[in-house]
């Protein structure tokens, strides 16, 4: 009884339990769901959302929101093939350049939020719109194919039968948990999210931390963009669009307060998996796309009521 109560008060654990339950039930009732190949596929999709949601988790913990992650994914997926130098057979130079651009976009978001005092929701929305316009001018309507070796490896390789993207997600997860729980910046993000005024008067720099958090969000969105590009082998305008709301949903499903100041990436991890699993289950049901959307929306709401519920203050 006490263990159940503890689980109910621990959103990450609750979300994890929910994932396990859904997997067991679906595995027993749906043919093919429990196959290793299928579960691996689900994890591969979760990795993408999980990596986008890494930056989103930090921004939301600090009381903001980043509506430009979808656009940043699209930017990286389109720019990377264009700026990868032919002379570099590994493709790493292109990756570094692209991640630099993604981080730079994040820095601009942070500068707007910190120094121009534009609310993050407006700043990142404006940034997303701006980037979309720019991409239409640069790429037109056509898709860009990728030849960058490192990107293709990341999207296709399976060392030890585990997709490289999932391995990347494991690394991102470890880094994220260290940032939030073991580094001073993590505690500062949380303090700023819970009470920016008290944090500022305690000597926590609002400007520097805002810059940092949005830069990290840009970086992780860029990383996810590269992974998506490798999995897709093509970049096109709109490729990142589905990841904006799913990244926010994964964070909130993991029990992180949308108001900031409370939560952890340990919740976002099962949150991302739960989201992907739900989508997969709905696809199995034979329904029209309209009904699938309606079911997906209702399920997200239902899951939130169970796991992501804000503890009463």
């Amino acid at each position, binding site marked *: 009884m006490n263990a159940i109560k503890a689980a109910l008060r621990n959103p990450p654990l609750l979300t994890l339990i929910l994932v396990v339950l859904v997997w067991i039930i679906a595995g027993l009732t749906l043919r093919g769901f429990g196959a290793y190949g299928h579960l691996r596929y689900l994890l591969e999709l979760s990795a993408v959302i999980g990596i986008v949601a890494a930056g989103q988790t930090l921004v939301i913990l600090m009381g903001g929101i980043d509506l430009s992650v979808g656009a940043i994914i699209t930017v990286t997926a389109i720019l990377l093939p264009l700026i990868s130098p032919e002379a570099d057979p590994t493709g790493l130079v292109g990756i570094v350049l692209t991640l630099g651009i993604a981080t730079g976009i994040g820095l601009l978001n942070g500068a707007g939020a910190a120094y121009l005092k534009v609310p993050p929701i407006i700043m990142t929305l404006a940034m997303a719109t701006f980037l979309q316009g720019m991409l239409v001018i640069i790429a037109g309507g056509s898709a860009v194919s990728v030849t960058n070796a490192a990107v293709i490896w990341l999207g296709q390789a399976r060392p030890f039968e585990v997709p490289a993207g999932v391995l990347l997600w494991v690394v991102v997860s470890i880094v994220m948990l*260290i940032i939030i729980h*073991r*580094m*001073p910046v993590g*505690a*500062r993000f*949380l*303090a700023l999210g*819970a*009470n920016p*005024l*008290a*944090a*500022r*008067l*305690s*000597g*926590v*720099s609002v400007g520097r931390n805002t810059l940092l958090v949005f830069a990290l969000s840009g970086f992780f969105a860029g990383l996810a963009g590269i992974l998506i590009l490798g999995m897709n082998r093509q970049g096109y305008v709109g490729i990142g669009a589905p990841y904006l709301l799913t990244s926010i949903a994964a964070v909130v499903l993991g029990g992180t307060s949308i108001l900031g*100041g*409370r939560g952890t990436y340990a919740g976002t991890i099962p949150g991302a998996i739960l989201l992907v699993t739900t989508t997969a289950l709905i696809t199995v049901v034979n329904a029209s796309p309209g009904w699938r959307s309606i079911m997906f929306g209702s399920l997200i709401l239902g899951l939130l009521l169970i796991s992501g519920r804000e503890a009463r*203050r």
Partner: protein
Amino acid sequence: MTKTKPLLEARRVFKGFFGNPVLKGVDIALEPGRVHALLGENGAGKSTLINLLSGALQPDKGNVVVDGQPVLRFSPAAAREAGIAVVQQELSLAAELSIAENIGLGALPRRFGLIDYRALSTAVAEVCERVGLTEPLDMPVGDLSLGRRQMVEIAKALFRKPRVLILDEPTSSLSAHEAGILAGLIRKLRDEGIALLYISHRLNEVQALCSHVTVLKDGVVTADQPLAGVNDEGLVRLMVGRDAGDLFPAWQDNPVGNELIGLEGFSAGMARDVNFRACAGEIVGIGGLVGQGQEDFLLGLYGAIPASAETAQIAGRHRPLKNVEAANGAGLAYVPADRKHEGLVLPHSIASNLLLPSLGDLVKHGLRDRAAERKRVADLTRRLTIKGDVGRPVQALSGGNQQKVALAKWLPLDPSVLLLNDPTRGVDIETKREIYLMLQSFAREGKLVILLSSDTPELVHLCDRVAVFREGRLATMLPRSEISEEAIVGAAMGLSAKGAAA
């Protein structure tokens, strides 16, 4: 005199939070035409009892009784219906709305479904006159000082024509003048037959206003008796359960060291053109009516709001500090008056709050050193006698203990200048005394303590000098030999003949 029937009672009420009993069978009866004092240290259960009486909380056991009838499902709406109004310690006003709208909120007069502003302003003007609010009624509440907002809060309660009025520390942010108006008002309301419950840490006010007292200690009633014949010491004994001794420690003459602050023509926010000097080892008081630029002066020194100066020397830096980090780096620390909103991150744990300013210096290989952090937290909680599990959210602590956390978190940085903004507001007597002793020991260690206080006796008993602010300017600097309540209040009101001395 026949026995009057109580309007509002609590009978044998129990209430606990998370398994901690806060009230253990408390009785209280508020009678019409009587000012009833509720005393007790912070954490004794006063706020919880008020919340029960106003329907904000439900008792676990026992009853709230209105007009002799036990109420089963008491709620704030039912309390309003029954004519019970509460003036909360935490101000509950909407800063963007005007004075009139705030006062009328929830009971706005309507006409054809729209707010009838004309009827509202007539009704509001009447209550405002009673509480001495002279500001234009369409002024946004956010533009008022804390003390004036408190008066708006009181007017708001009166607007509903209550039969029972509960005042939770109404004078803690009021100037002497405003407190005087309030005292007169309370007497008038009493004579009109309203039942009043008055909570205050200021015993002289209680003595002057109240005729009956209930004392709470650790969730039980230790006294429920007429006030006549009980003196201050007697009251303190009832609250603390023993003799409290003198509230204020004896003034100490500490050797004065280097000049840590030297300002000419310093301006920040409302504070204008201030000349101010202070040295290591001093306790310098800052007084005056509430909202005369004192707070902005401290915030400007601390780099929290933009400041300018003709010449400035602040802890070795030769211009006003440009932000809080720079101020911390120079050895300044600031403890805000509003600890709930400015001083602490309430939902976070005691430990995280204690560590926040000094997070950066307990790092090993770029990671937080958990063992060193635990040691620091244990050390701080022991030095300041903050009791209980440090993993609890700081909002679970009583006001006094919260204030100790807000102070303690600066100690690891070993600041040379402490800027304290009303550090004893809403703090129980025992903690007040601890804080006073702490301030004296800071001065002994050669720190400069700048103490802004709305409690004049505090300035008189603790400070080496007192700077009195008036309309944004430093009106008078009183040396130790001239400090008295009369001198401070006089200078604050602009009455001092020697006012030009500074």
